[in-house]
């Protein structure tokens, strides 16, 4: 996937995955990495920004002698996710048109 597309999809993806249930950084990055193959550490600035925008709330829990930071979605985060989903649905229509064009080209070449 193109880097810019990955970048664009990262924020709603983070919101959506955290929206499924409270999670911590490593677990989240593993899940995202499996989906879009993004660098795990690239996730950090996104989490910081969403936290600062009050889209996420955090709590630290002691785990094996160290602190593990858990992230959960706030009402504002859910609202932000809903807005971004609407935009992605619009994008989906564009993608459908682009994909159809690509299929036709493939048929013409074969």
């Amino acid at each position, binding site marked *: 996937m193109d*880097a*810019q597309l*990955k*970048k664009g999809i*990262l*924020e709603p993806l983070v919101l959506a995955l955290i929206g499924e249930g409270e999670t*911590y*950084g*490593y*677990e989240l*990055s*593993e899940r995202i990495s499996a989906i879009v*193959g*993004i*660098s*795990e*550490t*690239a*996730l*950090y*600035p*996104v*989490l*910081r*920004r*969403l*936290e*600062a*925008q009050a889209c996420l709330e955090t709590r630290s829990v002691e785990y*094996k002698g*160290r*602190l*593990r*930071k858990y992230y959960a979605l706030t009402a504002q985060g859910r609202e932000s996710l809903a807005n971004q989903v609407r935009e992605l649905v619009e994008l989906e229509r564009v993608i459908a048109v682009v994909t159809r064009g690509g299929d036709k080209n493939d048929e013409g070449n074969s």
Partner: protein
Amino acid sequence: MTRGIASFFATAREGLARLGAESADEALSYYEEFAAEALEAGKTEAEVLERLGRVEDVISQILSEDSMSRAEASPGPGSLTRATRGGLGRHRRLRLIAGAAGRAGLLSAALPPYFLSMAFYLLALASLLGAIAGVAAGVLAYFDVSPAFVASKVGAVGIGIVGLSAFICLAASFRFIADALARFTLGLMRRSLGKGSPGKGSLGEGGLGMAGQAASAHKTPRTPRRGRMKALVAATGAAFILGLALIAFSGIGARYFSIWNSMKPAVLATREGEWKLSAIDSIAISTLNSDILVLTSSGHPGILRAAYEEPDWMSGSYTLANGRLEFREVSSGRLPFLKFAAAHPGTTAIRLELPEDWQSARSKPEGLRTAIFKPLGIEALSIGGRVDLGPLGGKK
């Protein structure tokens, strides 16, 4: 934690030393948690280090983010310059990366608003100096005016208040514009730096892309800034109106205008009066810049003649009450920076012709001005005007 990863974070902490230990720990805590979790999950040290990327890029990202956040939270010429320098420093590294030409262009686009912002910061500084000059003008005018002229002193206070409030308001406005331009500049820089690739690999590539997104997390809310600006404009506006009211009340503004427009009066009017000396115990002369008191020999039978020469924009009055002849210069408008006008011979001249046995008693010099008195043939000098006291029948 393995030796390689520990070394990674030790190097990162050294690189982030200027942020302070607490801020560095906070910035690195996510990465350390990630490394610890990854090792627990069975990743090798090499895999973890690969995911963390180059330590120089982690340091660069955190420092640049810190300088930008500081500049956004507290815009100013210093913080903006540091942030711009940090951005350009990162940009120099970016140029080595293929495909960074577009980013370079966007970053270059941030330079014109940066210089414009700095120009407005300079204007704000110049306005602050103007405010100091305004206050100085008021203070000088205040002390230049004789204590006898209370209204003019009030007017001088008004000048100081108007100068201070107007220039402070101007400085705040320039600062407001400069801050807005600074935020715009930072926004452009973030936009340019925010187009980094978030693909697999080092944080240097992925992190740069995210840095731009992280930017907005640190944006300072604009409402309080605008609120402060409104409060400042309201306060300086009220002070300005108060100062204008004081100037209007004192009439010093109108006199300033008159003096400015009649540096050398074309016509000198002469007023003369004669009094019986037996009715006068003392003569008090009040001009803008000096108070002069002449004591008479009580019961002297002669006649005192006094002449007051005035330009067309000035006036004075003689009054005789309780044995005291008082001359008072009614229009007292001279501002310190218009001394050259007032120093023109004949601008203000009072001539008293005195009997030989009269004695001058005392003078009240103002500030650095000197009033010179002699028992007879007296000459009293004041900066703003000239008071001549001569022997009876004599003309200087």
